[in-house]
């Protein structure tokens, strides 16, 4: 590395964008796990999932970002809101959302976070992403899905089929 730091080396715009979106995602995620209102938690989850799609764009993974918006923000969130309504969750503040000893989760999460932060900083502390990253060409992605990973793709199709049939069988009235 040269002694002079060029603006193109530290990629100011990308880093500022990353910071804003990451803060939004972390605040949203904290709201998902601490909110006392089920519907508010579901709406905070939308923020996190959309922010994740934006981060995928920063990582030059266009197709995955679009899929994330279609599948998560489009379909999964609608499913969640249906789940909230069909189980007649209390609209408004609900004090019964947490376990009795929910504070036990704090040390567990902080311990895992500490270990992971230490390991990640130790292993990848100053590794840079390639500066000339290009969006992943979709033909390359489809070649990867349909050539080396064809068998998992088939397995996944059967998983989806089984999930659809299983969900219908489980949720039927009779």
């Amino acid at each position, binding site marked *: 590395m040269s002694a002079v730091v060029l603006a193109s080396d530290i990629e100011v715009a990308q880093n500022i964008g990353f910071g804003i979106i990451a803060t939004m995602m972390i605040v949203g995620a904290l709201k998902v796990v601490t909110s006392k209102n089920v519907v508010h938690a579901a709406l905070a989850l939308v923020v996190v999932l959309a922010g*994740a799609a934006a981060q995928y764009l920063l990582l030059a993974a266009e197709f995955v970002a679009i899929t994330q918006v279609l599948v998560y923000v489009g379909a999964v969130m609608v*499913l969640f809101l249906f789940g909230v309504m069909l189980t007649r969750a209390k609209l408004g503040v609900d004090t019964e959302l*947490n*376990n009795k000893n929910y504070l036990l989760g704090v040390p567990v999460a902080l311990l895992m*976070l500490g270990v992971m932060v230490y390991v*990640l900083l130790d292993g990848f502390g100053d590794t840079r992403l390639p500066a000339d990253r290009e969006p992943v060409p979709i033909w390359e992605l489809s070649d990867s899905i349909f050539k080396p990973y064809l068998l998992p793709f088939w397995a996944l199709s059967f998983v989806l089929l089984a999930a659809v049939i299983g969900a219908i069988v*489980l949720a039927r009235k009779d």
Partner: protein
Amino acid sequence: MLVVNFLLLGAVLFCIGIYGVIARRNAVMVLMSIELILNSVNLNLLAFSQLHSNVDGNTFALYIIAVAAAEVGVGLALVLLVYRNRKSISLDELSEMKG
């Protein structure tokens, strides 16, 4: 851009999701926390995919999105079934299998 930015964001989201799975009693909220965990894993996969200029990470991320969609469908069907039988989706009341 440092790759560790994305990895640390993934780690933070993962730990928040773990806290949610432990702390929440409402089954729908637990499923939401699991979504957080799956998304943090996707973030890591895409970061490493970009770091090594290898498209495999993108493929795995797509597969994880598909599996997560299937998981939510079946999970919510199970929650609805539990609700219909017990009029409650509180997870700590499901203790029939405790010896």
